[in-house]
Every structure is written in structure tokens, then in C-alpha cells.
């Protein structure tokens, strides 16, 4: 029995076309279903992620937004009971065909997690790790240049330039998160997935990450899962609202936060849920 009444059956709303034909879709999910064993975690989600835009995924805990995010670079492959159906394409190419190398896919679709997780290595080595194992650089000087550029783009270089060989773990939480972003962008991904990247950070560190997201969107496509609706409103151009594994509404962020089409969206973002 569906939670939704008849008029809610077609959940995707008409406010703005979900599939934006004019903007280029970097990632396209079509009829994606995810099962964890018996549990149907994502139900028939169809969603385009546009190039050089920030797309925010919002929704209450357990709505499937993180699960959906993890489908986008096949992070769910690591979970044995997880089964994904439907298609997700990156630049038109299905990422779920057997010939796709998940490790290579993840260099194109990088990820930043909720809790900063730097390797117990130096700041330099944290960032150098990816380019090194993927053989992306051919000389020491090239590697150094990649590391410095990545730290610069992550807005961290100025703060750590005199201690590149200090441990990554010695940094503050906000700096560690920016280090993780530097590490993610060092392998030149095309898409960066962020799973609540600021939830462990104070407001100033959060503001720095949000400023960084603004900067990065010129060169990367970003998908961010956040519990902070204000953050979704501040950083994203498009917002997708998930509820009980279904995509309820996706639209321009301004439209979602001023005049959402769906009642569930309105209930959630205005704090009337449950």
C-alpha cells in the first residue's frame, strides 16, 4: 500500500521539468532501484545531475539520499547484500555494466565523506596518494605541482604551505575536510560526491567549505547530501527531495525553497514533518 494518495502517485512534479534537456546531464539515473537484501531502499528514481552545477539531495534520515549518492560511483558495490537495478550513465555511458572498472569510475566520480578521514600520512602524501596509485603523474615535480594545485583549489595551501610534511591528522576538523577535498580533486575527477561534508564542522569551517563548493562548481559537477536545508539552499542550484526511498520533487533550489510543488516537500522544508 502506497503512502501516497492517488494524486500523489506520480511523485515527480511538474514545477520544472525534471529532465532538463537544455543543460548537459553529467549523470543520468533512470528507474534506479536499490535493495539491501529484502529492503527496498530506493524506488524507481529517475534524476539528471547537470554539468557544473551543485545538486543537493535532501530528505529525512533513511529516505535514501545517501544510498542514492553512493550509487553514483558504485560505492554500494562494497556491500554484499546490495542490489542495484535501472541505469546510471556518466556522460551517456552506463556505469553499471560489467566492463566498467569501479576503481577507475571512482577517479572520475570522487567522494568526500561526513567525517574527515585523512590517511595517517603527511599532508603532502594524503594528496599525492591518488595521483600516485593511478599513475597520473610522470615525475616528482609534476606530482608536487598536482599536490600544490589541489591544496590551493581546496583553499588549504596558504594554511599548510609551511608544514606539508606534518601529519594530516594534526589539522583541525575543517582543515582535514578540505584536505579530503584536495585529495579528491587531485585525481582530476569530473564529479564530486559529498555526503554531509560539513556536519562535523563548526560554522566558520562550514562557510569555508561552502565557499569552496562555489568555487569548485566551475570545474566540477557536485552532488551534496545534506541535513541542513539552509546549506542546500545556500550552495545548490538544484535540489532533490527524497522521502521513503522515492524522489518526491526535484527543481531549481529557489523554486523548492520559495514555492515547492509537492506538499511533502513543503512539510519537510518548513519543519512540519511527521
Amino acid at each position, binding site marked *: 500500500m502506497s503512502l501516497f*494518495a492517488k494524486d500523489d502517485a506520480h511523485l515527480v512534479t511538474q514545477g520544472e521539468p525534471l529532465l532538463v534537456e537544455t543543460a548537459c546531464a553529467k549523470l543520468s539515473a533512470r528507474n534506479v532501484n536499490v535493495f539491501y537484501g529484502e529492503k527496498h531502499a530506493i524506488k524507481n528514481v529517475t534524476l539528471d545531475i547537470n554539468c557544473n552545477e551543485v545538486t543537493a539531495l535532501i530528505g529525512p534520515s533513511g529516505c535514501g539520499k545517501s544510498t542514492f549518492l553512493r550509487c553514483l560511483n558504485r560505492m554500494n558495490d562494497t556491500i554484499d547484500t546490495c542490489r542495484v537495478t535501472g541505469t546510471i550513465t556518466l556522460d551517456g555511458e552506463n556505469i553499471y555494466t560489467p566492463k566498467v572498472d569501479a576503481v577507475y569510475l571512482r577517479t572520475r566520480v570522487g567522494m568526500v565523506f561526513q567525517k574527515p578521514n585523512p590517511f595517517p600520512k603527511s599532508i603532502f602524501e594524503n594528496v599525492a596518494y591518488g595521483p600516485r596509485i593511478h599513475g597520473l603523474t610522470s615525475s616528482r615535480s609534476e606530482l608536487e605541482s598536482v599536490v600544490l594545485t589541489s591544496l590551493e583549489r581546496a583553499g588549504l595551501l596558504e594554511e599548510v604551505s609551511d608544514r606539508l610534511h606534518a601529519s594530516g591528522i594534526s589539522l583541525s576538523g575543517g582543515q582535514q575536510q578540505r584536505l579530503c577535498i584536495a585529495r579528491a580533486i587531485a585525481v582530476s575527477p569530473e564529479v564530486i560526491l559529498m555526503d554531509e561534508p560539513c556536519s562535523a564542522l563548526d560554522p566558520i569551517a562550514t562557510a569555508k567549505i561552502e565557499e569552496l563548493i562555489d568555487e569548485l562548481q566551475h570545474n566540477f559537477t557536485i552532488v551534496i547530501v545534506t541535513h541542513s536545508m539552509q546549506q542546500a539552499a545556500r550552495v545548490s542550484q538544484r535540489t532533490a527531495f527524497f522521502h521513503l526511498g522515492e524522489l518526491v520533487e526535484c527543481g531549481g533550489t529557489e523554486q523548492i*525553497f*520559495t*514555492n515547492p510543488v509537492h*506538499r511533502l516537500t513543503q*512539510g519537510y*522544508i*518548513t*519543519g*512540519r514533518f511527521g
Partner: protein
Amino acid sequence: MMHNMEHTAHTVKSYDEELALLVNTIAHMGSLAETQLASAVQAVVWRDSDLANHVVASDSRIDELEQEVHKQVMRLLALRQPVAIDLRNIVIGLKISSDLERIADYAANLAKRAVVLNQLPTVKPVAGVPRMARLAQELIQDVLIAYVERDENKAVTTWKRDEEMDEMYISLFRELVTYMMEDPRTITACTHLMFMAKNIERIGDHVTNIAESIHFLIEGTLLRCRRPKRDISA
């Protein structure tokens, strides 16, 4: 239960209380503005200058309430970071309070003219002013009910009825012009009446603004077509 989410309560009750307080303050402002209009016109009909002066003096109370609304709106925006229907509700609160403040200003202006008019001999077209004012009062009452009850149909009906106001204004305007041509000694009194009629007609326009705000609150879009205006000079 999910289906009327916009009418269900916030998880945080104090937020609902603050929103309710805002609506109540505005409704209170509205009923005072309507009373001011009623008293001002009563002062014309009864030729009661004391009542007229009382109306003029009472206008400050509505200005105070407008400031109170502004304070509440600032507070809600700063502390609650409202979105969607809550955001629209708070933003239109600001607009509606300005419209009501203007309506009360027009009522005070009517009262000032009543004091002057009371010193002149009565002229016959004076009866047109209370007739217009009765309609204006009705429109104010209806639009306030529509606001408090979030009744979009009532808001749109009120919006359309402003046309009646425009028609009454045009007909009174013509009557006054005719009267002045017939008897130039009435020009002073009739000119005051003409301004009074114009003031009441402007009150109608502010009522339509409020109706448009209510539509925006409920639908999130602007009322599309403009109301047809009968007379571009009106």
C-alpha cells in the same frame, strides 16, 4: 494527514505561536483601520467634529501596530529562516501591514476633511461618500477574513469587487462636477468631497493589494491578469 501539510503544525510549537501572533497583530491592525474608516464617515454624516478629531488622534495606534509587525517579521526572518509557505506568509505580513497603514491614513484624511466640511453648509452629494465607505468597509472585512482563514476564493472575489468601487467613484465624481457647475458656491465643499471619494477609492486599491498578497501566499504565484480599470483617471 500528509495532505494538508501546510495546515499542520510545526514540530517546533513556538514557531507556530510566533506566526499566529503575526497574523493576529495584522488582523487587529485591519479591524482598527476599518473602525477608523467607519468613524471618519460617521463624523461626516453626523457633522461631528469631535469624533473626527478622535479619528485623527487614533491614527498613531495603527502606526504603532505597523512597527510591531515589522519587529515580528524581522525577528521571524532572523531567527527562523523561514522557507516556502512560511516565508511567503511572513513576507506578505510586511506588505499587508503597509497596505493597512495606508488605509488608516486615508481614514484619518477623511476625518480631517470632515472637520472642514462641518464648517460649511451641507451639500446634497455628501450622501455618496458614506455609500462608497460602506462598500470599502465591506471589502476590508472580507479581505481580512480571507487573510485569517487563508480563503483564496474570498480573496479573489474581493479583488474583483473593487470594480464596483471604481464605478461608484466615477458616478460620484460626475455628480459632484454637475453640482459644482450648477452652484459655484458649493465648490469648496464639493472639492473636499471629491478628495474624500478619491481617498475611499484608494482604500479599495489597497484592499486589492491585500487580496493579491493572499493569493500569493496560497498559490505562490502572482495574480495573473490585471483587474480591468473602467476609467484611467480613476
